């Protein structure tokens, strides 16, 4: 009685077996290569790749090089004084920075604006204590393929970009949820 109820034909059996064998063979045949390129992933502005290195100057003329910050968690934020979402997310960025600086968080806020006085006034207005960098020739913005502000890169202690947030404003919860796992990783 049971056999008459089965809806299978020989063709279905062959098809099922074929899919099983061919699929498994394809999976085994196309395994990902185990070898990683020497020196880790190449530099590129996206998740899983090494953050492109740069050196920029702060408002008071001090040079900051990204690769010198290995061992720290770096939040790299591209912003502008005229950008409304940037303004909206600045207080959250400042709060997270104030809370987590001692655990190794560095915030680098990069702007292409040339008017140093306007940038300084903005920083004072929002009470920003993290590092603000000037990129007047937009070289770093181009290297990071920034299409608009705000754009934020979360970089781990090894210099690998772990997530990218395009647009904003970022909520404080979002910033903390991206930063916390990176801070927990050992240097």
């Amino acid at each position, binding site marked *: 009685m049971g056999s008459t109820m089965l809806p299978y034909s020989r063709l279905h059996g062959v098809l099922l077996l074929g899919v099983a064998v061919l699929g498994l063979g394809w999976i085994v045949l196309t395994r990902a290569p185990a070898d990683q390129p020497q020196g880790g992933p*190449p530099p590129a502005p996206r998740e899983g790749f090494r953050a492109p290195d740069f050196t920029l100057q702060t408002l008071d003329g001090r040079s900051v090089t990204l690769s010198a910050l290995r061992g720290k968690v770096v939040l790299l934020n591209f912003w502008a004084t005229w950008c409304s979402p940037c303004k909206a997310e600045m207080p959250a960025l400042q709060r997270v920075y104030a809370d987590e600086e001692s655990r190794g968080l560095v915030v680098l806020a990069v702007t292409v604006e040339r008017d140093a006085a306007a940038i300084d006034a903005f920083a004072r207005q929002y009470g920003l204590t993290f590092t603000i960098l000037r990129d007047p020739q937009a070289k770093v913005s181009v290297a990071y393929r920034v*299409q608009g502000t705000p754009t934020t890169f979360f970089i781990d202690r090894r210099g690998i970009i772990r*997530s990218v*947030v395009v647009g904003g404003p970022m909520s404080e919860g979002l910033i*903390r949820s991206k930063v916390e796992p990176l801070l927990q990783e050992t240097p």
Partner: protein
Amino acid sequence: MLPAVHLGPLMLQLPGLALLAGLWLALEASSRQAARVRLSGETVTNLVFWALLGGVVAARLGYALRFPGAFLKAPLSLLALNPQTLDVGGGVLGGLLVAWAYGQRKGLPLRPTLDALAPGLVVFALFVGIAHVLSGDAYGAPTRLPWGISLWGAKRHPTQFYEVGLTAGALGVLWRQARAPRGDGTLFLWAVGLLAAVRLFVEAFRGDSVTVLGGVRVVQVLAWLVLLGTVWLYPFWRRKPPPSSPRPHA
């Protein structure tokens, strides 16, 4: 790759727009298919709407549960318009639960409803591929093949284009199947099986696969199991049910 365009001060993120367009066209396709399987297009559209709503809420709660410390310090972030704070697994589970509850409430028959959703599923998958083309996500492994594209610091397999081309092919196959249904639920099995086959194939060329056990790609294994499941189930669902009275949502 073209992740964004500027309209004055506005930055439009094209991958997001592609997903929205895909959702709209998917709903349209499913609404039309609903009529073919004697269901109300409006009811099927509402089913998707409520599932999406439930999915988004569940995805946000799921994300907050993964990072409770972050959201306890800033609880208003639960309401923020940040798509980055959504948990996919939680969203899928929540969406399915809401869809199930809605279907129960409206008395929707399972297999015909799945058939109605099938074209929309593949249409949306096609636009996910287009979103990948625009964003550069789901990128390929490095290659020396002449059709490789320069992306993220290397010449790579254009996996985004493989994905779009094959999914478009899957849509064509499904289109033919939709004209000659072979039993309730079989169109859905075709859709899921085809998408699983596309994923099984394309994943082999991806440069961002999650791997286990010496390089085995997790997504390929999952796609293989799903494909096997659809092939196994097909004969059971292919048998046409006995003639019945008109459906309540005809």
